[in-house]
């Protein structure tokens, strides 16, 4: 009842709801509600307005300021300020999107209504769910929201990023930093390894008697050869412990700063627990998450295979070969927008062609990438054979430096498009 923008189908109460049913029949182009204002959600909202400005688009996001995860590893090691990660929604509003700062608490998929924590109800013709990830509390024994204040995950950028940075800064030289990396799938597959690299760089340059231990629940990971070459070359202070070497963390004890693996216990001075994750909570509440905790969707329309008229994009979605990256979220969002605009206008959606490019930096001026091209096949997004892949392992220093500059350029470009 605190808002009064009834014109866009933003209502409180059942009486108002009745007025708002099929807007399509009234000559308007339809109403789209987007839940989540990250790289996926903010992009799809703007892209729908770019493709058909008659569509009323409402974006619901709990935070008035977005804090981006890509490059937040550089914030942790002091190479960058947190403000370089933060964006408001003025640009999204100027694109004609109504932005509501609130939390979506429920979705009635039959009535096509979203309920917000503040009590407002939003009717939609098409709903896009793009909440990103939530930490799967309970999946790692001992790791609770309270434990995360002692052993930060820093896997959602913001206060957690700054907490981990403060802990590293406060650690005495000679300390041990322990990072635990989860099993697949999770947000940003190469992220734990970029983080390990940059923390090893920080220790090497600021606290040279210190060590970094990377405990991993996997035997293989994204850009593995590139990272391992960089570690061999730059970071004798970094030790990676794979799954088969006993790297899987099975429980944590925040009081003692201890991480327990199948093979033993590791005491940390700073512990960064990157825990198991799942789609943002609203996905399960809306009935679009399956037993895995993630959201199956149609690779042409991005419509949930579990609920009609609800589309899922970004990290929450099961996107086949596409990784959970900001680039992928942005690319999926634009393809999803095209499908939604087609559906609202009674046209058949076209088959999308999607790209992903994901840069990592192992040290300042030392970057590399993985790229991919994806098409729908057999209900998933498959990588096109013969395309994509990682940077050459034997690339010269100049190429690593160029890829580091391209990484920065990518960040400037995508954030300008999504939030500018």
């Amino acid at each position, binding site marked *: 009842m605190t808002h009064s923008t009834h014109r866009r189908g933003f209502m409180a109460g059942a009486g108002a709801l009745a007025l708002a049913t099929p807007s399509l029949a009234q000559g308007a182009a339809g109403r789209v509600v987007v839940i989540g204002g990250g790289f996926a959600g903010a992009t799809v909202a*703007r*892209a729908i*307005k*770019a*493709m*058909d*400005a*008659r569509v009323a688009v409402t974006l619901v996001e709990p935070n008035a300021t977005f804090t981006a995860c890509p490059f937040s590893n550089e914030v942790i090691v002091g190479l960058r300020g947190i403000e370089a990660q933060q964006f408001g929604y003025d640009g999204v509003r*100027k*694109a*004609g999107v109504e932005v509501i700062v609130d939390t979506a608490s429920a979705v009635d998929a039959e009535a096509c209504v979203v309920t917000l924590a503040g009590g407002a109800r939003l009717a939609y013709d098409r709903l896009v769910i793009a909440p990103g990830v939530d930490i799967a509390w309970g999946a790692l024994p001992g790791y609770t929201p309270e434990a995360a204040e002692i052993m930060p995950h820093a896997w959602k950028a913001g206060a957690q990023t700054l907490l981990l940075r403060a802990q590293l800064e406060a650690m005495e030289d000679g300390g041990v930093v322990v990072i635990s990396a989860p099993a697949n799938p999770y947000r940003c597959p190469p992220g734990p390894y970029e983080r390990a690299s940059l923390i090893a760089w920080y220790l090497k340059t600021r606290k040279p008697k210190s060590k970094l231990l990377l405990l991993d629940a996997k035997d293989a990971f994204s850009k593995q050869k590139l990272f391992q070459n960089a570690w061999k070359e730059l970071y004798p202070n970094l030790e990676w412990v794979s799954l088969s070497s006993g790297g899987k963390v099975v429980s944590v004890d925040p009081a003692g700063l201890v991480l327990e693996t199948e093979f033993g216990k590791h005491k940390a001075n700073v512990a960064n627990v990157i825990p198991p994750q799942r789609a943002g909570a609203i996905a399960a509440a809306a009935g679009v998450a399956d037993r895995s905790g993630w959201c199956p969707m149609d690779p042409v329309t991005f419509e949930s295979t579990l609920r009609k008229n609800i589309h899922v994009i970004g990290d929450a979605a099961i996107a086949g070969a596409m990784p959970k990256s900001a*680039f992928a979220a*942005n*690319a999926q969002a*634009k*393809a999803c927008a*095209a499908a939604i*605009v087609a559906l609202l206008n009674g046209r058949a959606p*076209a*088959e*999308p*062609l*999607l*790209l992903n*490019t994901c840069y990592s930096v192992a040290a300042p001026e030392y970057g590399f*990438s993985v*790229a*991919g*091209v994806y098409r729908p096949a057999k209900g998933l997004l498959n*990588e*096109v054979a*013969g*395309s*994509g*892949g990682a*940077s050459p392992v034997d690339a010269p220093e100049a*190429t690593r430096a*160029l*890829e580091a*500059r*391209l990484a*920065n*350029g*990518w960040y*400037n*470009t*995508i954030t*300008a*498009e999504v939030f*500018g």
Partner: protein
Amino acid sequence: MRFSALAALIAALAIPGFARAADAPAGALSCSGCHPGAAGVDTPAVRLVGLPATDIESAMRAYKSGARAATIMDRIAKGLGDDEIAAIAAWYASQPK
């Protein structure tokens, strides 16, 4: 009349540089993850908006064949068909600068 003019204006601004987003061929809107639609973005990646279609197309074909040295575009170009490359090039060329 006034409404459609306003709608067109909003559409032109909703993603900077992409006045004709509705007509984008498959794949074209993925490129702007790295290649900025708006002018003035600090990046080594070239802005494709308004470039001649033949320039974009010949560069992509050369990346695809390996004739042109690349850091990343060879890996991407190999996943695109020649007809898709031509359509993407023509669409970028048609965007007002």
